[in-house]
Every structure is written in C-alpha cells, then in structure tokens.
C-alpha cells in the first residue's frame, strides 16, 4: 500500500469522482474517498510491504516465500524488479523480532502481532514498530472490520471504516470496493454507488472483477445507471470485457417487467434476447417468462404452448399456474379445472388459480353440464379454503340448474364465511324466494334491506305484488353482481354432494324445465344492450311500449320478474300487435319464473301467440303445475299434469324423474321402476339409481339383522 498511496488523490478529480470525497449524506459522516488507482495499464496493486521489508533485510528465503504467497493470491501479479536495489528506505538493522512479525502478518495473525508489539514495548519502551508494519496492520484490521460489518448489514460502519482507511479502496481490494458501493446503496446514496463502480471500471483491470462489478450493479442500481456503465466495456487488449450477459439480463428484466403488466410492451429485440436465452438451455425460467408475457399480452394460445414447454422442462408450479391461467383465458374451463386441480397443492398461487378456474367453470352462462366428479372435487377445496367466490359460484350453479335448496345452502355458507357479502345475501334471498321459504327470505330481507337496494327490490316485489317499487336510484351496481340469467336448462346433477345417500333429496328440489324461461329467441340484441340500463329501478308507466318491452326483458335478465311484469303490462297496453304478443309472452315467463302458474296461464291468454310459443308456454305451465303439485304432495295431479304435457312436448328426463317419484309415492312401484329404468337409459344414472334403489327397498324391505 505504501506504493500506492503516493499517487492517489490526483486521479480522483479527473475521474469525475470527487463527489465521493465530499461529505456523505447521512449523519455528516465523511464518505470514504476512493483512492485513485494507478492507470489501468498497470498490474493490480498488491500489498508488497512485507516483501519489501524482507528484501530490505536481505532475507532471501522469506522474500521467496512471500513472492510465492502473493502469486498464489494474485495470479496476474509479478514481483517488482527493484527488490535487489533495496534497502530503499532508512537503513534498518536486522531485527529478528520484526522478521517474526512480518511472518505473522503473512499468516494474517493480526492479534498476535498486536500482542507481540505490546510485549516488545513493555520490555523495551524505546522500541517502535516499523511504520509500514503499523500501516499494514491498520489496513488489515480495517478490512476485516469492514467485511464483518458488511456481512451484518452495518452499512454506516462500513462507510466509516472506509473513510478512516482510504488505503483499502484500491483495485487490490475489489471486494472491499464492492462492499463500500453496496453500503452507499443501502444508505440511499445510489449516485455514490454508481461513482464507486465507475471508479472501479475506470481503474481496475481484471475482467472477471469488472464483469462482477456490473453484476453487482444489476442488483443495486436502477437499470438506466447499469446501462450507462456498459460504456466502460473494453473491446480490445489482452483481457477484453464481455458484458453481453449484462445486456441480456437487462433485456430480460425489461421483458420480465412487461410480462406482468399489459400496459408495458417489450421491444422485439428484447423479446428476441429472451427467446435466444430460452432456446439455449433446458432451464424453464425464460420460457415461463415468455409465457407470462404472451399471457398478459393477449396471446394465450402462444402462452399455453410456452407453458407446455416449460412444464416439459420441469418448470414446476409457476409454469403450471401459467398453463391453467392460459386455459382459462381461452375459455377452456373444463381442461383448466382438471389441470389446475392436479397442481393445487404445489403452491399458494396454484391453489388460488384452481379456485379461480373452478369458479369460472361453474359461473359459465349457460351453466355447463359437468361431470359430477368435477363438482364433487371442487366442493371440498372451496369448503376447506372458505372461498367465498367459489361458494357463490356453486350457489349460482345450483340456482341456475334449479337446485334451489342447494343454492341456498351455498349462499348461506358463503355468508357464514363473509357476513357482509351482499352478493351472497342476494343469492340467498333469491334462492329462499324460489323455495317459498318466507321465514328465511324475510330474515335475509330484514337484515339486508337497508344495505342492498336489489334485495329490497326483491322483497318489495313480493310484498306489493304487482305494485312497482318506488323509483329510486339503486345503491349498488346490481348488474355487475347479478347472477347469470336463467338459462336453457341442462338437466342438473347434484352440485352439492349430499350426505343423505339413501334419501333422494335432490328430487325435493325444484328442477324446473326452464329452457323456456327468460331467454326467448326474440330481440336478443336489444335485451343484451339494455341489460346495463335497467339496474336502476324505473317506473315503466312513463316509457313507450317498446322501451317498456326492452325494460321488461332486461329485468328478466336481472331476475327481477315482478318488476318485469309491470314493464310488460305497459307494453301490452300501448304496443303494436307484435309488441303486445312479445310482452304477453314475457309476462307469462315472468310469472312462471315466480312460480305463479295460474297468473302465467292468464297472461298467456292476454295476447295471441304463435303456435310454437303457445306450445312452449303451455308446456312450461304444465311443468310448473306438476312441480307445484309434487311439492305439495298431490302426486295424482303430478301424473295428470305431466301426462297432459307429454302430449304436446316430449318429456324431459328430470320431469321423468319427478313422475317416477310420484309413482313411488303412490305405491305404484312397477310404474316407478319402469320410469327410472328409462331415465337410467338416457344417462342419468345417478338420479335413476337413487330412485331404483328406493323402489327395490320398498319392494324388498331391508334385511333384518
């Protein structure tokens, strides 16, 4: 270090590095001044003090040992050529004790040297250790303290040690320079960090350390500052730099940032870099990155393929998450659910994706026909995770497939997990209403009426009959929270696995044949457009007939059939023939939706309908009659209504099940068995089996034990 110290301060300013010599920002501690290095053409600076000492003593053996040691430490170092001309300093007398101290120094035994110096001074108060040795000791201790402080994130100590021992800050101690640079960064002095790296890249020659410097910079500096440092890349010379990996990394970071932010676009060049990186290896990371980029930039097909590649490369949970997300984005819900299910336990994100995908699967409009196994495996996950959205989705799925009791249970379960969840309360209210559960319905309304306009609306519809609710703005964005409108029925399966295996509880649920409820073929465009506009309750009497008709359909979509009746009434009063016919049709459907079968029958008569619609309405009315009779235990009437209905339309499987249970209840086990066998042949084996078992149980009473 003595070699270096002389030349220091000059180069500092010329490197634009003077800032480092000024006061540091925190607490007025002086910042370390980086010692200027020798010009970059010189070899790395090596602590030659011990070597020079031994040479000055003519101790050839120790000189050779020290040269060997330094060569091992610094492969690029070559010993100074002027050693033979020593002693250069003041004439010193051969002192074996000092020899021993330098030897200890070579072994890094600092504490022992300190002790020995003290010991020598105790016996010889006049003796003073060589200044070079003291400097070397101070520097070695400073380095150790600085490294210890840095290892323990004591950044201000790092900076104060560096300030007190500027001789440490040379290209010999690149590690120390890195630690000082980091301490600057960790004390919010990033410009000083950059200055330290600039200093290092300007002065220090080892290409591995130069590349390491940029790698450090990547972790501590903003990308622009790292990019600025790239200009120090040395193209020529015996030991040229290759900073291309840094450039790649910068490109990769830009893509990474854009990969989760669809408002950011990565350049083609950057994407090409990442693609190249992805191709050159079997490591999945960059493929996953590209996958997310594609996923968030509206290219889920590509994303899917990339995630597939990543999975093939053992990309693990992150790749699986992306794969499931892409499938969902492509509306391939069934596959997405099945895939995500397998990965749900791998990471919290995978579980979240699974729940989202399952929710999306259940929330489709129209409700899909699902493999019972799928629903059965969603249920425990949703339950275990207390996933409110999932419970709601199961609720709407049950609701939209006519399983109102199950729907109500799910909504109530969702409410038990999140008591203030209005959509769940709304669902519970509608399901209770469909079940004619006045007590339960009133309980929900009492609790929610002040908080939810749409629940209040539902309640008012019931309480006031045909009186429209007062016109007032809705307090909730109802449309956004509205369940999927009743849709063409898919004969439902048991969505909520029943524990009562022998009791055919699903049968007690209304399974309405509702292909014809609420989604008439006419005017799809106007209705879908109006959907958003009818969330706010309006008085239809002020509307034109056509507008009232549109409003009626819109309210049907929002599942507010009694309000829809009022709107259809307005349309019937003033409209053209076609409007009247349409409105009467809508009104009939609205009553059917409310299980007001008698009113529906009347409404159907208000305006002549086409033969097709007439058949459709009659079939629906008869089905509802049958269901109402079934609910009330009037099984003969069920058989009659269904018989009448089967003369105009083919009987649907779920109604066949109802007919089967009616026979069963009437003790007509042979008829019941025939019906259930027929149902079984159509593929509804679960429902049919329950019925068949019940019949067989009745015919052959349980074994006596």
């Amino acid at each position, binding site marked *: 270090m003595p070699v270096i110290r002389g030349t220091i301060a000059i180069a500092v300013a010329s490197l634009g590095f003077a800032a480092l010599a000024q006061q540091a920002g925190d607490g007025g501690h002086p910042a370390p001044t980086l010692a200027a290095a020798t010009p970059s053409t010189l070899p790395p600076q090596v602590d030659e003090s011990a070597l020079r000492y031994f040479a000055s003593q003519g101790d050839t053996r120790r000189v050779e040992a020290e040269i060997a040691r330094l060569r091992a430490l610094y492969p690029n170092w070559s010993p100074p050529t002027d050693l033979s001309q020593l002693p250069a300093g003041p004439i010193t007398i051969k002192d074996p004790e000092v020899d021993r101290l330098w030897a200890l120094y070579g072994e890094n035994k600092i*504490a022992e040297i300190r002790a020995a110096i003290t010991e020598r001074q105790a016996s010889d108060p006049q003796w003073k250790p060589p200044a070079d040795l003291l400097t070397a000791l101070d520097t070695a*201790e400073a380095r150790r303290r600085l490294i210890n*402080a840095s290892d323990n994130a*004591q950044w201000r100590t790092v900076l104060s040690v560096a300030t007190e021992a500027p001789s440490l800050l040379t290209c010999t101690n690149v590690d120390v320079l890195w630690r000082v640079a980091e301490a600057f960064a960790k004390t919010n002095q990033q410009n000083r960090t950059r200055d330290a790296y600039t200093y290092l890249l300007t002065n220090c020659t080892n290409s591995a350390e130069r590349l390491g410097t940029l790698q450090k910079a990547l972790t501590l500096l903003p990308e622009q500052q790292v990019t600025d440092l790239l200009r120090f890349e040395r193209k020529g010379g015996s030991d040229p730099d290759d900073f291309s990996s840094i450039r790649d990394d910068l490109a990769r970071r830009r893509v990474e940032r854009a990969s989760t932010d669809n408002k950011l676009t990565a350049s083609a060049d950057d994407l090409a870099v990442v693609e190249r990186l992805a191709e050159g290896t079997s490591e999945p990371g960059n493929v996953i990155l590209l996958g997310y980029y594609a996923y968030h930039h509206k290219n889920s097909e590509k994303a899917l393929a990339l995630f597939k590649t990543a999975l093939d490369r053992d990309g693990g949970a992150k790749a699986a998450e992306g794969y499931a997300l892409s499938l969902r984005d492509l509306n391939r819900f069934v596959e997405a659910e099945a895939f995500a299910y397998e990965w749900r336990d791998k990471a919290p994100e995978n579980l979240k994706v699974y729940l989202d995908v399952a929710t999306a699967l259940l929330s489709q409009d129209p409700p899909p026909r699902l493999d019972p196994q799928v629903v059965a495996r969603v249920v425990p996950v949703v339950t275990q995770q207390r996933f409110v959205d999932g419970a709601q989705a199961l609720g709407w799925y049950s609701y939209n497939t006519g399983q109102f009791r199950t729907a109500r249970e799910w909504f109530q379960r969702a409410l038990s997990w999140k008591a203030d969840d209005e959509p769940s309360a709304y669902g519970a209210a509608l399901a209770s209403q469909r079940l004619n559960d006045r007590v339960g319905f009133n309980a929900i309304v009492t609790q929610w009426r002040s908080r939810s306009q749409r629940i209040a609306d539902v309640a008012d519809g019931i309480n006031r009959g045909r009186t429209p609710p007062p016109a007032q703005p809705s307090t909730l964005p109802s449309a956004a929270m509205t369940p999927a409108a009743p849709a063409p029925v898919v004969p439902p399966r048991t969505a909520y696995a029943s524990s009562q295996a022998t009791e055919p509880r699903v049968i007690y649920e209304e399974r309405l044949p509702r292909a014809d409820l609420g989604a008439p073929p006419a005017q799809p465009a106007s209705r879908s457009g109006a959907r958003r506009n009818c969330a706010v309750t309006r008085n239809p009497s002020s509307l034109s007939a056509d507008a009232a008709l549109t409003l009626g359909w819109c309210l049907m979509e929002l599942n507010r059939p009694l309000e829809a009746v009022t709107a259809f009434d307005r349309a019937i009063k003033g409209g053209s023939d076609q409007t009247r016919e349409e409105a009467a049709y809508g009104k009939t459907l609205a009553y059917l939706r409310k299980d007001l079968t008698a009113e529906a029958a009347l409404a159907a008569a208000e305006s002549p309908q086409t033969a097709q619609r007439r058949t459709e309405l009659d079939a629906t009315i008869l089905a509802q009659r049958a269901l109402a009779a079934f609910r009330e235990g009037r099984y003969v009437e069920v058989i009659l209504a269904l018989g009448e209905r089967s003369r105009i339309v083919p009987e649907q499987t779920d109604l066949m099940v109802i007919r089967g249970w009616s026979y069963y209840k009437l003790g007509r086990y042979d008829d019941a068995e025939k019906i259930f066998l027929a149902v079984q042949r159509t593929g509804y084996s679960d429902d049919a089996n329950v019925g068949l078992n019940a019949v067989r149980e009745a015919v052959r009473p349980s074994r006596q034990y």
Partner: protein
Amino acid sequence: MIKRPTGIPRLLSCLAVAGLVIAFCTLADARRTTWSATVNPLKIAGTISSVDWNAYRSRFIDESGRVIDNANGNISHSEGQGYGLLLAFAAGDRPTFEKIWTFTRTELLIRDDGLAAWKWDPSAKPRVSDRNNASDGDILIAYALAKAGAAWKDARYTAAAQKIAKAIGKNNFGRSAGTMFLLPATKGFGTEDRPDGPVVNLSYWVFEAIPVLAALAPEYDWNGVWKNGLSLLQQATTGRARLPADWLSIRTRLQTQPAEGFAPEFGYNSLRIPLYLLRAGVTDLEWLRTLNQRWSVNNEGVAVINVVTGQVRDKLTDQGYAALSATLVCALDGQPIPGAFKMFEPKLYYPSTLYLLSMSLIAEKYPQCL
C-alpha cells in the same frame, strides 16, 4: 452466561402489599444510592496471580483473542470479551489484553451504533450470529478499556472506552416514570418491544463500572442508572423468596414482576449481583445479609432458585459459584476463604470467570480472608 428466553410461563410473584413494602425499603436505603457514598474504587491491576491467569487464559482464550464460552458450544460473546479484558488487566497481561481487544474490535464492534454485537459463533456464517448487543458486555468492555487506558496510559483504549460509553448512554439508557434504567439490549426489551416491556436484568448493572464510564460520558445520567438499579434490586427482593428474577418486567414501576417468557428464577445471571455490589463497595445493603444467610449460614449454597416458590432447582457446586458465597461471607463476616478454594481449577468459562473476579476482589479489599 447468557440466558435466553426459555418459554417457561410466568407465575405471579408479587404479593398485593408489595408496593407498600417497597416504598418503605426505598426510603430507608436512599442514602446509599449514589456512588459518592461508596468506598475507594477498585484498582484491580495486579490482583490476579500469573498462575491463575495462565490457567484461565490457556483454557478459554485463543490466539486470535477470542474468549471462548466452552459451556455454550464454544461461542464467544461481548460479555466474555469484556471479562477477558478485565481479567487480563487484573493480571497485568498487556499482550493478551491487546489480543482480546483486537478480536473484540474487529469482530464484534461493527454495529452502526458503536456497540458490540453480542454473539459470535465459530460455526455460523457470518460469525456474528446475533447482531443485537448485550449492554453488560458493552459496559464490561468499556470499563476494562477505561481502566487499562488510564493505568497503561494508552489513549487508544481510553478513546475506545469513551466511544462505547457514549453509545451505551445513547442507546441503552431508558427512562420511565422519571427513573433511569439500563436496557439489556438495543432491541427486544423496551416498552414498545413487548407487552410487559421494559424488561431489565439487574445483573447487567456492573456497578463498579458506572462511575468510571460516567466520567467518560458525563452527558448521560449514569448516577440515575446506579440509583435506580439499587432501588429496583431492593424492590425485587421484597417477595417471599427475597430474590430477584433474572429478567424483570418494570412496566409497572412499583410492582416489578418476572418477565414473560423467562423462567421466574434467580439464576445464572443474578447470582453475580452480590459480587458486583461488593466490588462496587456497596456492602451495607440489607439484602446481602439475607442472601448470605441463605447461601452460607443455612448452608444452601449458591443455587438456581424459583423466586415465586422459593424452591431450589439446581445447586451449583462449581468452585466459581462457591467462591461467590465465600466472598460474601468474607466481606460481611470476615470469615476466611477455605483453603480448598485457593487452588484454581478452571473447567467452565463462566464460573471460572466468577472465581477470578471474586479472588481479585478479595486480594484487593479483603486480604485478611486469605
């Protein structure tokens, strides 16, 4: 001996009437609560024989100046480094003092606030395995440096002592309800850090060091810390067992309680309190007589004792622990040190340290007991 929380649930130790008793005791002892009333400060230098010191040094101190706690996985800690410095000073071993100081400075004194990281583990990476400080370690280091700096006229030591003394005052002095106390560490024991904070450890009051450090950092209220340390001690010894728990919650100032999460024990920490008091010249605390009764007259010996039930958990038989009771009975009753104690047989770091500190005190203040 550093004792960490053990998770043993706290038991209620205070009688409802304790507050009244405390107030009375505090008043009665008020005249003794400043160091100006104490006898001459210890000189320390030259009070440990080279034979004893070499036995200790060769067993517990390595060539790098690391004091090794061989009962705790051969770790080192700031307390051990402080004791090592103090004993080296007492033995007049400047080279070893320099070694220990070199290790302490480069390995432990790395905290941004100027205090020492308390725990150093040779098998950990980084070796400092807990960056928190321990204020007794800092006090011992600063105290030894101050004594050595003055005796050996070495300004480096004095300057370092002063820096640490100021850092202790700045970072580890607390004040609650107008009284000063010493936090055991910078993190984890304050009012905000735990529901029953502040929590203190009365054995961290190295009383003899307080006047010395006060001279180096007079801007901090060392006198208040001294006073309140004695006051807390008197208060904590009014329970049925008449012993303080190692870790005390002082959240309710007039009714201190064993701290949550620590065994409610008069244990390895607190058993050095009488030694510290005697070394500081505080010999007339009534509690010392009570403890002496327990240790020597009743023949119970030094032990880890549950302060709530008064039950003995662990009798401590190492020579170093026995030296504590021998020192106490010597100081109070002039009883000679039994011959068997005079032969130093170091086994474990902590009791061996207590042994040398005891013998050093006896050599300087009570030579008649030898």
